[in-house]
């Protein structure tokens, strides 16, 4: 049997490498479009300062991109190395968007990023701009395909379990493609990336303005970042709301945990601003609510109810009990695959198969299940409330802070007096790290909130790992931590060095 320690270590390694990869992705998503904007202005106005801006920000973008590629290699293969049963069980669906991501997106961005850096002087201006645009499209398409894959983990549509192949199989590609969860996640995630890219440019430009250096480039960059960032922050908030709506539909336990909503509230449910959470007794000692708001966000109605944690668990208990039968029938059917009675029985039970598999964390034989084990499995079905509740609130709070910062920056740049507003420039500089924190929190809420499943309602996390030794996991985690720490130090060193250096004049021979 798979040990809990192996599962925990496998999760730790995946979480660490994914969160680390996600330090570099959002900036790439945002910077590519900012480069497109700057270079478009250059092509339209023919002013060399915009070419210099594109090259300067492009250099910083390149330092970041190198680590995005480095850490991305890990992600493509880690499903196989560490999540072998997952790969077998859902590769039929999950593998397809990953492969299409390579064919449609990675080739595009990686081929054209080479020309972006080395094509200056070899390509006519308009063609170089086209290269930059294709690079940006490639980058954003890769976000689309990976979020289609991830969206399917959250809301597994268009697929069915086959007892012959012992895995999920695709039944409707278009349903996987147009999964509402995937679409909502895509627009929210790329918006967050655009906020990150804008903050990067806004902060460093503000620093130049405070120091009185590189004024020509800093002033123009500030304006572009303020406008793009404001649009991005609005879209991240509005489309984050859209993401909440679809989560409410597909993943009620995630939203209930995010909101520390222990009981079903009368519709429309209030939105809890803060609460003192008592996880053990499944209640909040006190909380501050905004009436009606959650119900409206979560159901887009005034009369539909969102279920509370205790009600969700009661429903899950029924599904787990039914799932025991589904697992037993599946075992019988595997031994006797031509038995039509078993086939018919399994067809009625298989919707709850995943819930039965939750018990595999505790027993391998379904005859050994006791009421106490069922209780444990039921409790597992809703993730810990406090980290989700506070993680979500921190992310949303930061989202609104970006809205106000970019709003002020945009207002000041329309008025044309932002260079004199030291408080605004200092705020922008100070706020540099926060988009990354918000992005990582968003990732955490989305993926931790999915527990105890890798594929929601279908495949428990506990069953998904590779049968590796615990020692192998310790070794590989140590290796990743070592490599990634050194790489981060090197990257930060170069980034700070070249940001300090600023746009140098080697381009003006």
């Amino acid at each position, binding site marked *: 049997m798979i040990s809990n320690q192996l599962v925990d270590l496998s999760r730790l390694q995946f979480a660490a490498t994914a969160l680390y990869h996600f330090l570099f992705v959002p900036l790439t998503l945002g910077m590519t479009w900012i480069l497109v904007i700057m270079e478009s202005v250059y092509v339209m106005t023919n002013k060399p300062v915009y070419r210099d801006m594109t090259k300067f920000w492009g250099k910083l973008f390149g330092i970041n991109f190198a680590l995005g590629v480095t850490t991305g290699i890990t992600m493509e293969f880690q499903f196989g190395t560490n999540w072998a049963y997952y790969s077998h069980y859902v*590769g039929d669906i999950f593998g397809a968007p990953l492969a299409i991501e390579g064919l449609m997106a990675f080739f595009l961005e990686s081929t054209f990023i080479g020309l972006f850096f080395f094509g200056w002087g070899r390509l006519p201006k308009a063609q170089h701009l086209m290269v930059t645009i294709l690079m940006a499209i490639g980058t954003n398409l890769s976000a689309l395909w990976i979020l289609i894959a991830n969206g399917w983990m959250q809301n597994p549509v268009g697929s069915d379990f086959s007892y*012959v192949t012992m895995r999920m199989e695709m039944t409707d590609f278009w349903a996987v493609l147009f999964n509402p969860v995937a679409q909502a996640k895509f627009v929210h995630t790329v918006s967050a990336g655009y906020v990150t890219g804008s903050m990067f440019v806004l902060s460093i430009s503000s620093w130049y303005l405070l120091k009185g250096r590189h004024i020509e480039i800093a002033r123009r960059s500030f304006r572009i970042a303020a406008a793009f960032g404001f649009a991005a922050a609005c879209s991240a908030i509005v489309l984050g709301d859209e993401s909440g709506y679809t989560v409410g539909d597909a993943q009620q336990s995630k939203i209930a945990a995010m909101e520390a909503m222990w009981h079903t509230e009368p519709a429309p449910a209030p939105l809890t601003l803060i609460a003192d959470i008592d996880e053990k007794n499944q209640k909040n000692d006190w909380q501050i609510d905004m009436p009606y708001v959650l119900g409206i966000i979560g159901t887009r109605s005034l009369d539909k109810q969102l279920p509370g944690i205790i009600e969700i668990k009661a429903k899950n208990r029924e599904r787990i009990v039914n799932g025991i039968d589904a697992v037993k029938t599946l075992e019988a059917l595997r031994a006797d695959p031509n038995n039509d009675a078993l086939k018919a029985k399994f067809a009625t039970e298989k919707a709850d198969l995943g819930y039965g598999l939750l018990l595999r964390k505790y027993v391998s034989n379904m005859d050994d299940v006791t009421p106490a084990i069922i209780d444990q499995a039921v409790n597992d079905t809703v993730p810990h409330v406090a980290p989700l509740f506070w993680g979500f609130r921190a992310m949303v709070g930061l989202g609104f802070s970006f809205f106000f910062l970019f709003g002020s920056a945009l207002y000041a740049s329309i008025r044309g007096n932002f260079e004199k507003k030291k408080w605004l420039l200092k705020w922008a500089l100070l706020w540099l790290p926060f988009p990354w924190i918000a992005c990582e929190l968003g990732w955490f809420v989305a993926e931790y909130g999915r527990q105890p499943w890798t594929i929601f309602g279908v495949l428990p996390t506990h069953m998904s790992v590779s049968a590796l030794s615990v020692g192998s996991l310790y070794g590989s985690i140590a290796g990743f931590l070592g490599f990634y720490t050194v790489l981060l130090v090197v990257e930060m060193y170069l980034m700070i060095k070249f940001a300090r250096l600023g746009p140098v004049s080697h381009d003006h021979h």
Partner: protein
Amino acid sequence: MLSYVALKVIWWVLVGVLLIGFAIMDGHDMGVGTLLPFVGKGDVERRVVINSVAPHWDGNQVWFITAGGAIFAAWPAVYATAFSGFYWAMLAVLWSLFFRPVGFDYRSKINNQVWRKTWDIGLFIGGFVPPVIFGVAFGNLLEGVPFHFDENLMPYYTGTFWALLNPFALVCGLVSSAMITCHGAVYLSHRTEGDIQRRAKMAATVFGLVALVLFAVAGVWLAMGIDGYTITSALNPGELPNPLGKTVAQTPGAWLENYHRMPIAMAVPALAFVAGLGAIALVRSGRTLLGFVASSLMLAGIIGTAGVSMFPFVMPSSSDPTSSLTVWDSTSSHLTLNIMFWAAVIFVPIIIFYTRWAYNVMSGKVTVDYIVKNQDTLY
């Protein structure tokens, strides 16, 4: 929709195409990385070598990523079993590949010899280690790998990392390393001039000959000393894939069966020799672009030989032959194979088209003069 059997065969071909594409495109970058410390004397010469691949290595590496993704989508059981079983070998590949993006991008950003020489070693590791490990992995596939499935189709690898490094597999690793280094040398001799080109031509000759000799040795060893695998139960290739639904026996000479049954298949290993010798001759006579085509064909011949010898096996199991993975029982569903087939048919030609355009934009010799004039913007 094409029939399931046809799609299973097509996907065997397509995985082969992606692996060969990876060897041709990313392989020449890796060969250049392997040669970097030896053909470039001094910093400027090394920058010539690096900048011959600088605009393209990232796009080329996507062949590797996409081959991984395509194996996930088309052969999920292989993806799950091979990468978890070859855990440490796979990590060694990934970790050595870490050196390349940062090595290329960061090396010349700081003008310090210790910094630059350190990254040169990194680029060497990133170029040298992966081809060796891929060759070793292919050697182990040909020998059979100790793994089995439980009743839920969870794969268990029961060997050790060190067992992968057996003599036959190491020879395969050397074949792979030599052919990739030869290929990189051919590319370098096309893109450079003067001393670097002279050294590259020498390297192409030496490593080309080594690759072909070792390929012959591995072939004889495979024919005489390695037992292949055959499916012994009745076969219905159109069935739903179930890796436990067949019986398999290990039999001497089984890896030669396909050549007996279809003598035309001998053309694949023959291609490796003809194209390899052709590549050497073409490069030495100065027709380097044709030489690159020939060395690409040599790679196709060598990789294709491994595939053709094993067909329909992909990953035979030495400890539990029934668990062996074949093109019939390790694929994804009919629908997924079909969708991925069309995705490949549409996108691969587009990719080849714009990759070719990118090489055209950057065409011409990379010279010492070019490096010196653009030292702040080039790698």
